[in-house]
């Protein structure tokens, strides 16, 4: 409880770190902030070509089907992989001055989150331009889904960033894990083609539900299933609590380990 109050007191620091990160990320590059959009767009093009032209599937408007899942996925995976290095990257600050250490993963995940929100502008543009149509009632649930994903990503980032301080290999291991995780989550394919016996495993994966919700809202134009959303929220909160506990335990020796 006191942690939450303290984090609230340091909200200005979170804001300014997020701002610094967003402004500094593409500093010096010619295209600058446009990279925020170019990166996911190229991933989208590659995956669309591979999975709809070469491997073939019968999903109509596959590019949109993929796009609404890919953007949230990129947010999640960058939160855990690059987020893992966030504490180590800020070691100068941590060794020099006190502030609640959680500020760092929080601000990192938040800046990834803002990036995702910006990409959603592109998603909506694509939806409108291609005439795919929007269900406004369903879109109203979108913020809830986003918050659930944010909570989950934050929990994971807290865990990975704290452990990475003690065990630097994790950063690299997570690159592999993130790739495997993506293919074990119905991002490029549909959950319906997953064999029955693997389904319980897929259901344990919180990202399955979250991606499912995004797709229901933006692709199927329906309000998401309440059970799916609750599953996702429950798992998200669980990971956040575990992440926060792990982080709190490990943070005491950050200054010495860095």
């Amino acid at each position: 409880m006191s942690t939450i109050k303290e984090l609230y007191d340091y909200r200005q620091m979170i804001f300014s770190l997020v701002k610094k990160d967003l402004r500094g990320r593409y500093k010096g590059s010619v295209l600058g902030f446009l990279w925020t959009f170019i990166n996911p767009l190229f991933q989208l093009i590659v995956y669309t070509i591979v999975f709809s032209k070469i491997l073939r599937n019968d999903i109509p408007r596959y590019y949109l089907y993929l796009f609404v899942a890919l953007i949230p996925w990129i947010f999640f995976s960058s939160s855990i992989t690059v987020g893992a290095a966030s504490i180590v990257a800020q070691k100068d600050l941590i060794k020099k001055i006190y502030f609640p250490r959680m500020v760092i993963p929080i601000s990192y995940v938040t800046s990834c989150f803002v990036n995702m929100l910006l990409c959603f502008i592109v998603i909506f543009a694509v939806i409108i331009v291609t005439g795919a149509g929007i269900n406004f009632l369903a879109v109203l649930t979108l913020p809830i889904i986003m918050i659930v994903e944010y909570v989950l990503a934050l929990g994971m980032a807290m865990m990975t960033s704290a452990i990475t301080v003690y065990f630097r290999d994790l950063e690299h291991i997570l690159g592999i894990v993130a790739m495997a995780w993506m293919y074990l989550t119905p991002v490029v394919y549909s959950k319906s083609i997953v064999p029955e016996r693997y389904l319980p495993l897929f259901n344990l994966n919180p990202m399955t539900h979250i991606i499912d919700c995004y797709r229901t809202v933006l692709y199927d134009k329906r309000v998401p299933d309440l059970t799916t959303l609750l599953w996702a929220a429950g798992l998200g909160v669980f990971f956040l609590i575990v992440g926060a506990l792990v982080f709190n335990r490990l943070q005491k020796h950050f200054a010495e380990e860095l």
Partner: protein
Amino acid sequence: MAENEIAIEVRDITKSFKVYLDKGSQLKERLLFRKRSRYEERKVLRGISFTVKKGEAIGLIGHNGCGKSTTLKLLTRIMYPDSGTIKLKGRVSSLIELGAGFHPDMSGRENIYTNAAIFGLNKKEIDSRIQSIIEFSELADFIDNPVRTYSSGMYMRLAFSVAINVDADILLIDEILAVGDANFQSKCFNKLREIKAQGTTIVIVSHSLGQIEQICDRSIWIHEGLIRAEGPPKEIDLEYLDYMSRKLQDSNKKNAEAEAADSEEPVENKQGKRWGSGEARIKRIRSFAADGTEQSVFRTGEDIRLTVEYNVKKPVRDAVIGFGIFDMNGVQCYGTNTRIDKLPEFELTEGGTAEVTLKNVQLISGEYMIDIAIEQGEGIPVDYYRQAYKIQMISAYGDSGIARVDHSWKLQR
């Protein structure tokens, strides 16, 4: 607000560091060389307890590595103690690593916001302070330029201004009153006094005992991880100085002995420090206190007796012996010789000892190099030995300059 409210309570804290002889933090290293990641446990704090009342200022003193900086780091909560508890009441600001989180490409103003945010201030609080921060830093003309264009002095001034304007309840300071020029330093000092008068609790770690004496109500001397003495700065600092000077003399003596064993005579022309015709050579220089004990550390106001032993190869007529005292910046503090002092010129025919007694030496604390020269007639060097000898002055005063000028005050109301 009770008068005796406690702001800081430190109870029996211990802290040790693992000093890895060969640390691997990668998986491969951990698995392959498990036995290799041995470490030594170094106990830095062995159980320290003290309390600081609200509005009190204390100074932590002790020699390098005694644990005073570690204590301060534990107070800031950058690190945590292995055992024991620390209780702090109120907002803590630290002047430990100034300018943490400064971004070189951002303007001074933006950096004020970022830096103040790191101290836990919100936007409204920063808005209300920004004017006084900029004013205090004297950087109004440059405040919208990127920080990378600042000189290091400007950088420190900005950082200090932010940290000191946080309006903390507890202020922790590590050796930072060396910010900017003398003017700004005295301004900082005044600001610290003002802050203290407003009821802020202050903890200072410093080597400058003068600063501690001027601000602190109490000194805590930490020695090898334990509190050795605690009390009014004037008493504790003196006790500490006494201990240090004795220790310094011991080590100086050891060094001197080692050097003497190395070579009987000082090496010729060591780094261009020595020149002359060489007809007579300085062999050994020693310094003594008034009571005759050999030492090279003196208190301001003590008498110093210098002796110079020399060899003579060829007789030197019209010889002059002189000395010069230089501070560590190379500024000459004093210099004279036997001719200036109107001693009759003399002839050096065989080895001997020259002696000069410096009375009531008023040099302020610091290290000083002494040049010794044997010359012939109107300044022909026979053996000019630069930086031939080193003495150290210690003083409990915090005055500045080169030498203490004797003075007295009279204040009229």
